[in-house]
């Protein structure tokens, strides 16, 4: 460890249309250290790292590597400055071997023929350095997630990286793999390399890093070390010591349980459960908010409720057991869904808005004339949604791709709420919607709730979550680890549960 700075960022700023991703970011990474950058989803960490790796240029600010100021126009510039990036979503060819993936594009050899011996020697040298026992001839598809990550690390080392950036490296690892990774990182820094890693898992950050920088809402808010802070302190910094105060509400929660989920398990990648024995209930007039960092099983939970993924356990709506029901049957039973990914799951981009409203509802009496579609009725219905929810569009015949993301979202919310569902499963319903319209959508949801609708709300937006929910259930690693009262919960408490540092005693 030294006091020279391997990487120094000063005043970095980056805007995208409609959103400020980074502003006034300062980062000081000492050589030969493991430096953690922590923050929630949307805090701006990934954008910052992309800038550092040359995938985009900053709007303002400077980047200095080993004391000299640099401009990176592309990743190759960053690579020649000795920076290597291990992405969160690995860039590996499954059907090629470990060795092939590592040397691709920089194959040793003469006149086009790969010198396998030389390649193998160099790779094995690196593997020895980081004590990895991977078989270079194994196809990557047969590797576990931790091993794949190891391949990505070797890839950057093979190309001479001295500064490694790892983006959420432990997001997909099990505890043993995490320990192996940290051992590797420690070996690397003892050899003189520098590691920057992005994470929101506070336990691990405190365990392995030398320095910590905290980001919140696009900028750096604190620089500290594990010696100076503990996990609740970190959580508070990440989430902000001021939690949005939930608006005072009169309880509209009724007697009947409208959604009952018992022992739901969804098998995920490589046999590990994405949803692990989860149970919850939502009553009429209640909004249950699911808090948690993205990727802890929220999507799988919602998909299983809608019958889009196979699952074990039971799902019941208004007392009716829907465990074996098809998606269409679940819709008919009053279950509605605002999807996570509006482009992939929610919209037909090339179709006009009115056809998008009709999707799934074509068999309803009001929209059909016998076997035919009643185009006039669905068009005027859509026009109604457009007006009521403030969807900015020339008309209802406009193809969906022509709308901005926020307006697409408004249409989806509108078409879902106007079906008067009994149970609404909503995944970040106001994602992409501007602040003003956001409040309007919340009002609509509250109004429906007041009329008896039950809502299961998944959101990373704490203001939304705390503002709307009557109860908060925290999901971590596929399990419901806590049930909290939004009026009482503190920032550090919520942060701790969300990052898995704490689990409630099982009830």
């Amino acid at each position, binding site marked *: 460890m030294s006091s020279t700075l391997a990487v120094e960022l000063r005043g970095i700023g980056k805007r995208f249309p409609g959103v400020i991703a980074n502003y006034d970011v300062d980062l000081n990474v000492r050589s030969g250290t493991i430096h953690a950058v922590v923050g929630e989803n949307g805090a701006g960490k990934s954008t910052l790292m992309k800038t550092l790796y040359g995938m985009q240029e900053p709007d303002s600010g400077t980047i200095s590597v080993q004391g000299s100021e640099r401009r990176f126009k592309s990743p190759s510039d960053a690579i020649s400055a000795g920076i290597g990036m291990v992405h969160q979503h690995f860039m590996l060819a499954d059907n090629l071997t470990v060795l092939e993936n590592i040397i691709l594009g920089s194959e040793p050899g003469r006149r086009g023929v790969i010198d396998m011996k030389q390649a193998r020697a160099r790779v094995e040298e690196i593997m020895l350095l980081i004590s990895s026992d991977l078989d270079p001839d194994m196809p990557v598809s047969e590797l576990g997630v931790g091993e794949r990550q190891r391949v990505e690390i070797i890839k950057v080392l093979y190309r001479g990286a001295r500064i490694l950036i790892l983006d959420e490296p432990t997001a997909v690892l099990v505890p043993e793999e995490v320990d192996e990774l940290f051992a590797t990182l420690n070996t690397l820094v003892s050899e003189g390399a520098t590691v920057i890693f992005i994470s929101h898992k506070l336990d691990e950050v405190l365990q392995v890093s030398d320095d910590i920088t905290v980001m919140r809402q696009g900028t750096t808010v604190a620089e500290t070390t594990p010696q100076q802070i503990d996990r609740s302190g970190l959580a508070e910094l990440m989430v902000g010591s001021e939690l949005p105060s939930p608006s005072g509400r009169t309880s509209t929660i009724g007697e009947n349980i409208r959604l009952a989920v018992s022992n739901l398990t969804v098998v995920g990648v490589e046999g590990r459960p994405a949803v692990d024995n989860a149970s919850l209930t939502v009553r009429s007039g209640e909004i249950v908010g699911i808090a948690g960092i993205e990727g802890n099983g929220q999507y799988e939970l919602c998909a299983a409720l809608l019958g889009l993924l196979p699952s074990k356990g039971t799902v019941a709506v208004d007392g009716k057991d829907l465990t074996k029901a098809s998606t269409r049957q679940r819709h008919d039973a009053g279950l509605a869904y605002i999807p996570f990914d509006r482009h992939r799951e929610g919209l037909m*981009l090339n179709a006009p808005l009115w056809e998008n409203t009709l999707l799934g509802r074509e068999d309803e009496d009001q929209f059909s004339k016998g076997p035919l*579609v009643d*185009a006039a009725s669905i068009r005027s219905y859509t026009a109604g949604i457009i007006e009521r929810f403030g969807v*900015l569009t020339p008309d209802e*015949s406009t193809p969906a791709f022509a709308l901005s993301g926020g307006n697409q979202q408004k249409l989806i919310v509108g078409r879902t709420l106007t079906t008067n569902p009994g149970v609404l499963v909503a995944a970040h319903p106001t994602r992409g919607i501007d602040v*003003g319209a956001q409040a309007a959508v919340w009002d609509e949801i509250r109004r429906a709730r007041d009329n008896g609708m039950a809502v299961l709300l998944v959101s990373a937006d704490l203001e939304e979550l705390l503002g709307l929910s009557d109860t908060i259930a925290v999901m971590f690693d596929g399990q419901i680890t806590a049930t909290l009262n939004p009026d009482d919960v503190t920032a550090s408490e919520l942060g701790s549960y969300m990052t898995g540092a704490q689990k409630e005693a099982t009830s």
Partner: protein
Amino acid sequence: MSDAAAAPTGPLGKILTPSRASGLRTSGTTLASSLIAVFIALAISALLLFITGKDPVAALTTMIDTAKNSDKLLEMMRRATPLIFSATAVAIGFKMNIFNIGVEGQYLFAALMAAEAGSHLSLPGPLHVAAILAVALISGAAWAGISAYLKVRKNVHEVISTIMLNYIALSFIQWIFNSFFRDDSVEGLNVKTTIIAESGWLPDIVEGRLNSMFIIALIVVAIFWVVVYRSRFGFKLRASGYNATAASTAGISATKMTVIALLLSGAVAGLVAMQSVLGETHAYGPSATPIQLGFAGITVALLGRNHPVGIVVAALLFGFLDSTSAQLQLAEVPNSIVKVMQAVIVLTVVIVNEAAVRRANIRTAERARAELAAGGAA
């Protein structure tokens, strides 16, 4: 709604005149780009003729002369009839991103079955014809059903399975025909199934020139239009084609749609040779029943952009081009240039369309943004 949402209502009210503008705009783009593509293709064909030492001007004048001949126009419609059925069959699949290349096998199988069944029946006129048509529909659907089964249960891509089934159909049909269905009582090289009784004949519209099957073709296309673009089922079909994930999230079963689409496609395919069986030769025979119509249908569907009106126009165009072959031969232009021209037309139309639609979409998005900005400012 709160204040923020109220604000757009004002300017939105001005813009919110229900207009079909966007839909028409897309069709307009497709039509314009297709016309341009056809001209490019004709130019390429002319160039081809020129380079190979043939006279493109002679070809052009021959074609124009042919167009003036009313007899030839009837021939154009007669040739277009099976193409309309074939293209409609292919288009049904395309609406769901399913490639039914097996129309060839499906229609030949249906022709054999329908002709043979028809020859054994004796029913009053319209019933006899209806029965033959029914057998054709079912046989075509059945042959396509094999591909549907393979796709849904065994994950075999329909492109390969339908192509393989085309070849298998040829063998299978030959075997069945030679072993069981051939009418050996009739002398000569032109072997066929037993000729169908007159009650099973479909009358001509213009004696000897154009059969009523043409009308039926137009009716089928109209039904296609109504079903695909106006019915609930058609909506589900197109929705699965637009975005299969979104459709299944909304409750539309992809598997069910796939099977139904292939069966319907096969059924319509079954009608391709019915003009020959009901109106011309009244039997099935290896030299009596026209071949290659399945592949021609694919080109017509692509050219017509899978749209009912486009299909009819494209079928007529290709029918017209086919009818010029005899005259071209007389004018010393190799008439195989006709088929080459058709292939080049299809390729250029598909390419130009792809580029044009992409550009049009960008412009639609920009226009939408501009309109809203203008509305917001006011």
